[in-house]
């Protein structure tokens, strides 16, 4: 694997990525990041979340914009549908993580992308969250992602991009492997 001479223009700063990888390899403590969000109940199942600062490179980091996310449930759940459901936010997280990864890896490999589109579906049996059948899990039974990619590359090179993106994806790891979650009440 090598950085191509004729760098593809996918809007990814490959030099910065390679530089960061090298720098953080030598200073592993700077690679310790903490991501955070706050969530406030609004009404019913509707909640409002914001994402702003995070910790990384040894210090608090701020950004120019505060990002807002509404979550709710559809009307067939007798909710007001003020936002995507939390599980749809999870699907968005996985699809956007894989898609960003594809662009980064394509740029590193010198592959010009023209279009990348993911369709993602998660199957769920509501008997789990409704407590009808304790043998049914709450979460997704399975998740399917389908990519349509137009790029200057062979079909196997494109498959390899998508495979490598899964290998390096944080959200793919979070979903496919267990994570300890601690929830406390102040």
């Amino acid at each position, binding site marked *: *694997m*090598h950085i191509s001479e004729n760098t593809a223009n996918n809007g990814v700063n490959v030099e910065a990525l390679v530089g960061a990888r090298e720098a953080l*390899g030598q200073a*592993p403590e700077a690679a310790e990041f903490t991501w955070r969000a706050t969530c406030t109940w609004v009404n019913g199942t509707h909640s409002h979340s914001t994402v702003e600062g995070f910790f990384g490179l040894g210090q608090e980091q701020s950004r120019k914009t505060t990002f807002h996310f509404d979550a709710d449930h559809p009307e067939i759940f007798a909710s007001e549908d003020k936002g995507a459901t939390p599980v749809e936010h999870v699907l968005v997280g996985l699809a956007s993580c894989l898609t960003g990864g594809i662009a980064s890896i394509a740029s590193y490999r010198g592959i010009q992308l023209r279009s990348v589109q993911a369709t993602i579906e998660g199957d769920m049996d509501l008997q789990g969250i409704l407590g009808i059948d304790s043998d049914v899990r709450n979460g997704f*039974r*399975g998740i399917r992602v389908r990519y349509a990619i137009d790029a200057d590359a062979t079909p*196997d090179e494109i*498959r*390899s991009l998508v*495979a*490598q993106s*899964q*290998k390096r994806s944080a959200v*793919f*790891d979070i*979903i*496919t*492997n*267990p994570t300890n979650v601690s929830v406390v009440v102040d």
Partner: protein
Amino acid sequence: MGTVRDITAVIVGAGHAGLAMSRCLSERGVDHVVLERGEVANTWRNERWDSLRLLTPNWQSRLPGYRYEGDDPDGYRTMPEVVSFIAGYAEAIAAPVETRTSVTAIRADGYGYRVVTDRGEWRSKALVLATGAFNIPLVPKIAEAVPAGIDMLTPIDYRNPEQLADGGVLVVGASATGIQLAEEIHRSGRPVTLSVGEHVRAPRTYRGRDIQWWMDRTGVLDERYDQIDDIVRARGVPSFQLVGTADRTTLDLNMLRSIGVALRGRLAEIRDGTVLFSGSLHNKCALADLKMNRLLDSFDGWANASGIDAEVDRPHRLAPTAVDESPPLSLDLVKGGIRTIVWATGYRPDYSWLDLPVLDRKGRVVHDGGVITGAAGAYVLGLPLLRRRKSTLIDGAGADAGDLADHMLLYLGNRPASGGNVQGVLAA
């Protein structure tokens, strides 16, 4: 005990690598000793399972001044045959081996090294670590969570299926070791579940020739460490999924699945006696299939460009790895009938006796192509991609040892006669 002997170079380990270095130093007139904790080829004698055969064909074991002379160049040596091949080499080159001599400490001593053994001490100007990369089995920390009553063993303890309790076996790891043990244990009537993480798939033969013939002829095995972009990553890539058998079969996940081995994802966690597997099995298999096909494409390109297309069979591809649509993500060890877990999760070198500041934060020797950083006149052999892709093969020891012996000769020529210490001297 009590005596300190002076010598120019000490080589630790009388396996193929240490012996190749011994031969290279003899050729260059460097007096040396080879210290061996057991007998020549000790690891091959005592730390491998009964059915194991070398993964490289007989013709490929080429050592400086020594090669295979038998009538089965394409066969794969059994362990007794490997031992006798290496012992024969030690004899042929009259290597100065001190057997049954365990090194207990190595420290800096002026411009050289003090090597302490259970049979006296040596003072040397140069040092070669040829103890190999496969000394201590790596077992993940989560093994502590395995419920009592389930036997656990590593490939170093494993000899054959008969030593295992009757009942189910979980084999963790699907590189060469894991797939070989999974097959023979499953065929012994103990149903095997195989936990599969990142792996490297390869056919035993391709277009009628051994995979190693292709690796050798195309020059892949000669690729140098300083020509590879991401050397840290490349050094961590698992071994090919291969087995050496009389009928040269390809042993892969499709074959294991066809005999009934249950394929599961990487072992991610053990909670309350239940193993949790990663949901990434499909992608791990896709990555391995894609990587294998890139390798075979490169062989085809080489065959075409070299004009030997007609000498080998036609190109072909292996069936993609078949994986159940939704492989189970958990296994209750007791309820699931698992009596034994085999951790085929890799090895690491043992440097517990090395009292030199040459290890990184992950316990690896820091070196540049085998020239140890921060300890002048000290060298290491036999680590993955040390100088070449073939550095861990018997066939790779000679070239690496030759290069490092040349380096040592220059170092010895430029070395200050006295004063200071090794950490202050940059090797030539």
